[in-house]
């Protein structure tokens, strides 16, 4: 319990800072919505003046301006930026929470206390989870208030929550990935550089892969486990990708747990 409390206290500042970063991000991106909505109106106007035959000739007959340009559509399209920020936070947290002891040479101090390594691992993990849960709750509140302020009107609550929950799913995967990375690499000199390289790398892989029409990429990049268009249409996730995510999540945790429990720790590295 002491370890948990200590970790929670030392994480509180960074959690707070990340919530501020997210607040800034959501404010910027949600503020675009009015411009988006007015563009949609222009487009609708344009379409209503086009005869049906002309629309068909341009290949536009299947575009339904009411559903395809809704607020949720807008939200789904700006959401990757929120996910990217969230993933960086989670990955940094995962990489840092166990390796911090090595870097600040406090491993022997902590491990010589009469606490099992298992308890240490679980306490630290629980503290990290708490930090992410708090961030997640703040995030839901921010986007919801943002939607109301920018005049999104009424939208399906289920779909909105399904989309917003992806933020936390991605965070969980990256937290565990970060934990594993911190256990695989003996000495991490710069958690920031590894975290940013991994998250940006996977983000770009996902974005570019989808743009290039490569479906397999969706198993690889946590940013693409959920296709927002699919969620908007079906009010559900595509489970095969989510299962890939959950297995990655479990593998990472179990492996980092086993590595942490068994590794020989040298007092002075």
């Amino acid at each position, binding site marked *: 319990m002491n370890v948990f409390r200590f970790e929670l206290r030392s994480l509180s500042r960074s959690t707070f800072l990340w919530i501020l970063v997210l607040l800034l*991000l959501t404010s*910027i*991106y949600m*503020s*675009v919505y009015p*411009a*988006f909505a*007015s*563009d*949609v109106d*222009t*487009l609708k106007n*344009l379409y209503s003046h086009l005869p049906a035959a002309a629309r068909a000739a*341009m*290949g*536009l007959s299947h575009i339904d301006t009411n559903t395809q*340009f809704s607020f949720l559509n*807008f939200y789904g*399209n*700006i959401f990757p*930026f929120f996910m*990217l*920020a969230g993933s*960086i936070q989670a990955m940094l947290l995962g990489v840092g929470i166990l390796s911090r002891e090595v*870097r600040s040479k406090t491993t022997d101090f902590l491990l010589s206390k009469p606490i099992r390594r298992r308890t240490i691992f679980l306490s630290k993990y629980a503290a990290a989870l708490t930090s992410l849960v708090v961030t997640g709750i703040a995030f839901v509140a921010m986007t919801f208030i943002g939607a109301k302020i920018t005049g999104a009107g009424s939208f399906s609550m289920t779909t909105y929550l399904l989309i917003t929950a992806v933020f936390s799913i991605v965070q969980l995967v990256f937290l565990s990935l970060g934990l594993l990375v911190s256990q695989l690499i003996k000495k991490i*000199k*710069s*958690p*920031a*550089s590894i*975290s*940013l*390289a991994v998250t*940006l*790398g996977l983000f*770009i892989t996902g*974005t*570019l892969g989808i*743009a*290039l*029409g*490569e479906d397999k990429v969706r198993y690889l990049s946590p940013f693409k486990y959920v296709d927002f268009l699919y969620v908007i249409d079906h009010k559900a996730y595509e489970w095969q990708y989510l299962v890939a995510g959950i297995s990655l999540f479990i593998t990472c945790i179990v492996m980092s747990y086993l590595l942490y429990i068994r590794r020989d720790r040298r007092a002075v590295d």
Partner: protein
Amino acid sequence: MNVFLKELKTRRKSLIIWSVVMIIYLYLSMLKFETFSATPAVVSELLRNFPSTLKAVFGMGGLDLTTLSGYFGVVFAYTALLVAVFAGMLGSRVLSDEESDKTSEFLYAKPIPRSKILTAKLSVVLIDIVILCAVLFAGSLALVSKFSPTSQDIHFIILLNTAALIIMLVFAALGAAASSLLRRAVTGGKIIAMLVFACFVLDSASKLTPDLDWMKYFSIFSWFDAQRILTAMNLNMYALIASSALVVIGIVVTYVFYSKKDLTT
């Protein structure tokens, strides 16, 4: 000279990894170009009539993916983002690693002036950046060569690589400055990471709507925006001046503050 050689060796592994990864990334991205160049022109004609915010939100704005230059511009924009991380981290780590490795006392007790050590370390940063850039340039040329590029395409690729080189120099200089200013040098890496991310966000947000257009002045990625480079076929003069100023300021700050810094042990 010894410091220089030692530092060069320390950084070699990450330089090799980054070079290999960037080449693989470029290669995989270019594999798909053929499917795009086959897309009928009707689609891009259609998209031109869409309102701008709508296009930007749906990620359809900007470069024309059906042309070699347009496609390469999109791919390279992401490359610039990644190598910015490399450069910023390199710049901050050449100075901070001695502290986190607890070797500052060893190194700085040697009869070499701090300014000389600094020069040696910064030269390594410069050399590694130039090497990575050369690898990128050679890789880009080799990869586009099979799509029979015009001299216009080649010119564009040269401009993009120059832009990437400048972006890397700026982030490296800022990274070094951050490490020398902060009491705990390790935080320098975090700050640079945040800076890269902030520039990325500002750049992408500035394209969303005219109301946010002012953001482009604050992001180096917008200064060297691929689309603008493709239309103008040169690098923006103000961007070049501002970048050089940032590099000079970064280096001056590094020399002034690092020479006086109370190194933590």
